[in-house]
Each structure stands twice: as C-alpha cells, then as structure tokens.
C-alpha cells in the first residue's frame, strides 16, 4: 500500500518518455587522408572538423562511443552486419557524425546509388553503397541521428529508392544533394555550427535554444555549399505521415523518443 505512489510514478514515467531529456551517445569519423588509397583528393578539414564536433558534444556532456579519423574509419563501419561494432560502427551510438568523401553522379537518376567512401586501414572495401548495404536502427542498432557531411549521399532524385531501406529504426538523417558543378565545400564551420545548434552546453542553454535536427541542418547545412543546385537535406521516418513530419521538423537529439516504425518517410531540403 505504501508503495502505491512509487508504482504510480513508474507508470507515469513510462507513459511520458518525452518529459525527460535524454543524453545521447555519439561517435565521430573524419577522413582527411585519402592519398594512401590512391583516391581523393585529401580533405583538409574533415578530420579536424570531426574532432571539433566530438569536442563540442563532449563539452555538452554526451558520452562518446568512438571518434576516429583517417585510416581508423573503415568502410565496414557503414555496412549492415558490421556496423554494430562498438569500436567504431555507425549503428553503435545514438548520434553518428561523418565527414569525408561521397561519390556523385553527374547528374544522378532516380536509380542512382549513393555512396560513402573512406580510406580505411581495415574493414575493406572502402566504398559503401548506402541503399543496398547500410541499415540503421535494426538488429539492436542504436543509431537515431546520422549526420553525413559528404556531398552527394542524399541525392533528392533517388532519395525514395536509396533511403527507404536504410531507415530501419533510425529517427533522422541529414546530408546533401549535389553534383560536381554544385557541390559541398570541405567546410571548417558547417559541422561545429550544426553541433552547437542541436546540443547546447548548460552554460549557454539559457541563451541558445536547442534546435531540432532538421531545422539545425536547414540553417547550418547551407553553409559552404555551392549555388546552382547543392541542397541540404533532412529525412525522418515515422509510423504515420504525421509522425514522420513531426520528427523531421521537431525531433531533437535530447528528446529521447522511441524508435519509429518506418512506414513513412518525410524529408525537406533547401538549396543554394
């Protein structure tokens, strides 16, 4: 009888998961050095940017799962079956930030695949076809927010074909659509500006509100991209259309929402 209040509190807590701010875990990966693999060119700011994003999230208080650069970022980190590796897999943390090369078609078609390309010491091959090999949020995968700062891995024309299979429990993914004529530039600010918009340290939280992942990318993802068709893209999954739209527009990394059933996807984009 005297524990009735305790049971009541437990039920209330279970029914109101959004009432409590979550502390998501994160991993970062940045590939500057592509020369050892005979591809490229090198991207001067990718590894430093991944480091800066890691520093910011750590400053906010998020626990780090891994933070790899250059040869320590492996192709296998992005492929289903090996992406749960707690030593670096992209499905092991709640937030995963990648900065490096993608592969573009000029121009892409609806059936064109999207790629992430690294230059790993192990975990070959280095190139991952996202639509056929990447599955996030399945089989115990923890990834909720994928930030893919790699040029073309979210081509708008092929988004429906290439990204629906990927959404297996992940909440929101962001990236760019572009071409060799209108591409992303290897920025020394886009990643940290985005990180500061989605995760605000306590010392600044009264002055800078935490933005949703989708809105933060629409604001920061347009920095250092070329005009003429390069676009910042954010996609979210949901059980219903309204759920997907709500997550796309409003979900924050600290919401602690449960994984969506990916019946629907909602996306938005803004182009230079």
């Amino acid at each position, binding site marked *: 009888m005297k524990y009735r209040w305790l049971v009541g509190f437990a039920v209330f807590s279970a029914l109101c998961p959004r009432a409590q701010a979550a502390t998501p875990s994160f991993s970062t990966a940045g590939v500057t050095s*592509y020369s050892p693999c005979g*591809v*490229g*060119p*090198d*991207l*001067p*700011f990718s590894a*430093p940017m991944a480091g800066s994003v890691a*520093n*910011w999230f750590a*400053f906010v208080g998020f626990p*780090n799962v*891994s*933070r790899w650069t250059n040869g*320590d970022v492996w192709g*296998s980190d992005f492929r289903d079956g090996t992406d749960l590796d707690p030593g670096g897999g992209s499905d092991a943390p709640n937030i995963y930030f990648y900065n*490096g*090369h*993608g*592969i*573009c078609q*000029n121009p892409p078609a609806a059936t064109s695949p999207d790629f992430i390309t690294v230059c790993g010491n*192990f975990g070959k091959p280095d190139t991952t076809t996202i639509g056929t090999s990447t599955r996030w949020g399945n089989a115990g995968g923890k990834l909720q927010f994928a930030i893919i700062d*790699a*040029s*073309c891995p979210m081509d708008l024309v092929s988004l*429906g*074909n290439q990204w*629906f299979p990927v959404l297996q429990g992940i909440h929101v993914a962001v990236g760019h659509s572009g071409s*060799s004529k209108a*591409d*992303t*530039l*290897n920025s*020394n600010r886009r990643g*940290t*500006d985005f990180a*500061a*918009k989605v995760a605000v340290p306590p010392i*600044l939280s*009264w*002055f800078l*509100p935490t933005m*949703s992942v989708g*809105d933060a990318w*629409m604001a920061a993802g*347009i920095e*250092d991209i070329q005009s003429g068709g390069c676009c910042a893209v954010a996609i979210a999954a949901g059980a219903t259309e309204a759920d*997907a*739209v709500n997550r*796309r*527009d*409003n979900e924050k990394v600290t919401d602690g929402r449960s994984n969506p059933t990916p019946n629907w*996807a*909602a996306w*938005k984009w*803004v*182009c*230079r």
Partner: protein
Amino acid sequence: MKNARWTLALFSAMTVLTPSLAAQVTTKPADYSDQAEMSEFHELATRVLRARLDAGAKTSADANMIGMRSAGILFSRRLDSRTFFIQSLKEVEGEGKTAGYFQGTDEALSSRAHELLERLKIPRGEWAKEAVLQENTQTGRREASGKVTLGPISKGRRTLTLDRQIEGLPVFSSHLKLVLDRSGDVGFMELHWPEIPPQVVTEAHRLAYKVKSGWRAPELARAKVESAEAGIVHSVAPGLLMDIYPAIRVVYAPTDENVGQKPMQYFDRSGRPVPSPRQIDAPCPDKQDRRKEK
C-alpha cells in the same frame, strides 16, 4: 619559418585585441553596473523586436552571453562579438510550424531583414549578396510490397541569407539568416557580424593584391584550383571564442568528377594554412588508435 611564426603571433595578438578594438567603434556605456547593462539590453530588445516586453520578461547574463525571454521570444547576443540571436520559443517547441509559414513576398522578407540590420546598427556598406532560400518538403509511404509512393512537393518556410563584405573583401563566416513566422514576426534570426580589426582588413587587402598579382595556391594531389579569393574568416556564431584571420580561400575541384565534396583551405600570404577559428577551448579527449586486424 621565422616569418610564419611572426605572422601567426601577429594575428593571435589581433584575436586577443579584438574586444578592445571593438570597444572603439561601439558606444561606451555611462554606467557599468549589471542593472544598467540589463536596462540597456531591454531597450535594445524593444527597439529590435518592435514590441513591448511583457511584465514577466526575464533577462540574464552568463559566460559571454546576455539574453532576454519575453512573450515566447528569446533575444540574446554575444558579449564578445556583434552576434545576435532571435528565436521564437514556440517555433522551437514545434507550435509555430503547425501554425504555418510566412506568406508575404520575398520583398517583404527582405525589407524586414534590412530593418533589423539598421536597428542593430550594421553598416549598410557591409551588406553583400542577399538570397531567399525556399525550403521544400515531401513525404513518401512504403507499401507492404516494398513499393514507395511519393507525395507531392510542398513549399515550406523561407530563409533569407545576407553575406558580408568589407571594402569589397568577403567576410566568409559572417551572415544574417532570417526566418519569419506566419504573422511576420521573427521566428529565427542569427546575425553574426563581429567587429573586424583594421589590421586584419589591411592584410586581407594585401592578400587580394597578391591573388591579382599571380599568387599561386599550393597544389593538391588529384585536384585542380577552382577559385582563389582573399577575405576574412572567423569563428562560428555559437561559441565561447572569437578568432579572426585574413586569408586566401582556395577551393579545389577533384580531377575525378565522381568524387564528391570539394577541398577548401584558407592560406596566409606565404601559402601556409591559417589556423582554424576556434569555437571552444575544451580539452580534447585522449587520442585513440584503432588497431584491430580483420
């Protein structure tokens, strides 16, 4: 090498000096008390927001920020930079989006942006390229068969962006970003327009002269130089530090057109990379080394 160190030391010193130089171009308050600071900030907020603050308005200052929350609006600024933030708290909580987007013309959006810049005393001569970016939205449903049915493309909110230049030199990291809500009030504004020390502008002019006079960008394997432009680069808007450097921004295009993301680098007059402007001075986590053979 000695020259490089000297250059680095000079601009590090400029970074440190920035607040004091900034003080020369802003009006000095007559009273340095906390109360006077808050009162001054209230006056600024009233002027900028075109609104009377409600009785429950709260003002606070901490670290390098001062801010005010009133009637569902957060107005804040950095104390070490001419950087302002306005955010509709309803928008942040998602309520604003369900109410719809600003329906006015691009000209009306532009006009509101200009008004804000003037109220915040941003020199008109520094306003550069302006653009209105249209957000688009779409949904899709996955049928049991796996077939994906796409919905129509709809128009979302619009963001006005305005770049900055000083004496014809681009300030790559400065900007205004503005979104209005359905009623025409500010839903989101980020104005990042730090005071730039005159020595930095002078050096940027010298760099521009060098670019015109045949300065050659360092080569990068598997890439060719797409553009080289002198200007000024500085720290991002949200942060605890403000570094400012004159630099030549070089954009490279991969020789293989299928490789996405173009390298970019900022160089000094000798062709050495300038330091990346910092955001925070937080200790780096231990360096890791992933040794795991497959």
